[in-house]
């Protein structure tokens, strides 16, 4: 069983685990092998069945009070012991702020490669994994393969879709493994206000950048969004520098694929553009005729967003009447 051929999936985030199972299922089918999910935590046993119903053939369950919260050394030692014991061929790990370092350390402990933040995964004719990722700040897509085993790739949230819940059976293997002592201590956790909307699913996105003068002016974008059933996004500085929002669109943020993306007061630096490559139509509104955003837009308007946005909202309202 499982000698260097299974596909494994792990994330400390449950939703992401389901998404990766979705893609992992496809890879396992192509390779005519089995898909296993690794379930780690405290009191998580009841979730094992659901992972099978979402597409896993097998669940390796490690349930221990010391694993209640994510802890780097503890989780690493669990995954490492399992990987040594069962020797998976492919390990797909959720690319979160905790998951990616975990994957990197695991790959290092196993003296193997790692492809981070894959936006596509496939298998070549020799059965080798090919990972695709955005590189050079969004200028290019690289295809990468392995010269070592196991093949470890990390997968960002909301890149792949979870499968439909099905009535399937599988095996749950409960294990006791030695858990390494933590080297760091979490002394405080404060929840972060994140938007509950799933911007990756939006059909229309209206985004603002540093051209927006005040946080409240976002209302201008919201008014337009209301009319076209869209959602509002923003560039990174509005979150990182001005701290008005917590999330952003771009290379290091959300990668979106709406039918329509309207960039208002966004200069169009490569790292922002990397997040909107898959938009069907891009509209740019910018007061600077030289702004690079016009080079990657389908429709450009040189002007003040404070004038253009309300006028566009009006014009669309009229058309809808």
């Amino acid at each position: 069983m499982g000698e260097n051929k299974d596909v494994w999936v792990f994330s400390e985030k449950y939703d992401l685990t389901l998404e990766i199972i979705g893609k992992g299922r496809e890879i396992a089918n192509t390779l005519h092998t089995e898909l296993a999910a690794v379930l780690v935590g405290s009191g998580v046993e009841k979730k094992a069945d659901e992972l099978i119903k979402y597409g896993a053939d097998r669940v390796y369950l490690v349930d221990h009070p010391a694993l209640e919260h994510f802890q780097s050394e503890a989780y690493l030692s669990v995954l490492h012991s399992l990987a040594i014991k069962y020797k998976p061929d492919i390990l797909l790990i959720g690319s979160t702020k905790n998951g990616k370092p975990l994957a990197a350390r695991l790959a290092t402990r196993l003296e193997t490669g790692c492809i981070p933040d894959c936006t596509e995964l496939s298998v070549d004719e020799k059965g080798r994994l090919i990972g695709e990722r955005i590189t050079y700040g969004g200028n290019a897509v690289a295809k990468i393969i392995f010269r070592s085993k196991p093949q470890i790739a990390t997968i960002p949230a909301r890149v792949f879709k979870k499968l439909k819940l099905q009535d399937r059976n599988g095996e749950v293997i409960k294990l006791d493994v030695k858990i390494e002592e933590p080297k760091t201590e979490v002394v405080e956790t404060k929840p972060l206000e994140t938007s509950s909307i799933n911007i990756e699913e939006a059909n229309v996105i209206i985004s603002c950048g540093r051209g927006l003068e005040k946080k409240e002016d976002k209302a201008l974008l919201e008014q337009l969004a209301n009319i076209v059933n869209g959602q509002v996004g923003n560039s990174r500085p509005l979150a990182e520098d001005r701290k008005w929002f917590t999330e952003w669109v771009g290379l290091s943020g959300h990668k979106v694929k709406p039918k329509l993306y309207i960039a208002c007061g966004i200069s169009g630096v490569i790292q922002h553009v990397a997040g909107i490559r898959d938009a069907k139509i891009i509209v740019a509104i910018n007061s600077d005729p030289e702004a690079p955003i016009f080079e990657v837009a389908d429709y450009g308007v040189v002007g003040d967003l404070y004038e253009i946005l309300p006028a566009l909202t009006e014009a669309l309202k009229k058309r809808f009447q």
Partner: protein
Amino acid sequence: MKRIIVCLKQAVDVTQLKVDPATSQLLTASAPKKISDFDKNALEEAIRIKEKNGETEIFTVTVCSEDAKPVLREALAMGADKAYFVNDHTLQNVDTWATAYVLAEAIKKIGSFDLVLCGEASLDSFSGLVGSRLAELLDLPQINSVRKISVEADVVTAERTLEDAYETVKSKMPALITVTREINQPRIPSLMMIMKASKKEIVTWTVADLNIQKEKIDAKNEVIEVLAPKTERKKIMITGENTKEIAEKLAKALFQEGIIRR
């Protein structure tokens, strides 16, 4: 005396990278190079820790197959005390495993330290793996994606931003921390600092100087293709007599694209 080691990568300035339109290949060789953005934040943070706590040495370490001395001079001008440069043509096309391995050996050769600071990810490859790989190779506690650091005696406290929470983490030193861009605004060195930096030392090593066996740094990953994505955009500029006319033209175009619905 405390010692902070900052890992500085010489990266391709991705904002100035050109693409060959015929082949979609990136012209990386001719692109300008600079200190990777987040690494500058790491260096700035080291300098601030030194300013606050005193009695601190800051060493930078860089692994690169090409010349990186001009970039290292900038780091010295900002405030690093000494730069270590592993420069070896055999390091062309190294992957994150090999980079971390060489960094680890260089840091072992430097000797003792209290903190290793890395960028959360590098500007050009943006993999975000090297810091964690290095922590594993040096068997260090590691805190990732940090936006605030404070050092007291032999304990470091760091605040990090996760997807859904802020977390404050404590660790005994030595430890490894990766920083985000929001941690600080890196300083621009003055002319005085630039002049002073010319007297600071850049220690250059080859892979052989580090006694690394060649097979230890064989690549574990291989890049088989790097292509600029083809995006054909219409680039239609909408103009008009006044704002109203422009807005109406744009609204019409969007309707004709069939992309908006109420």
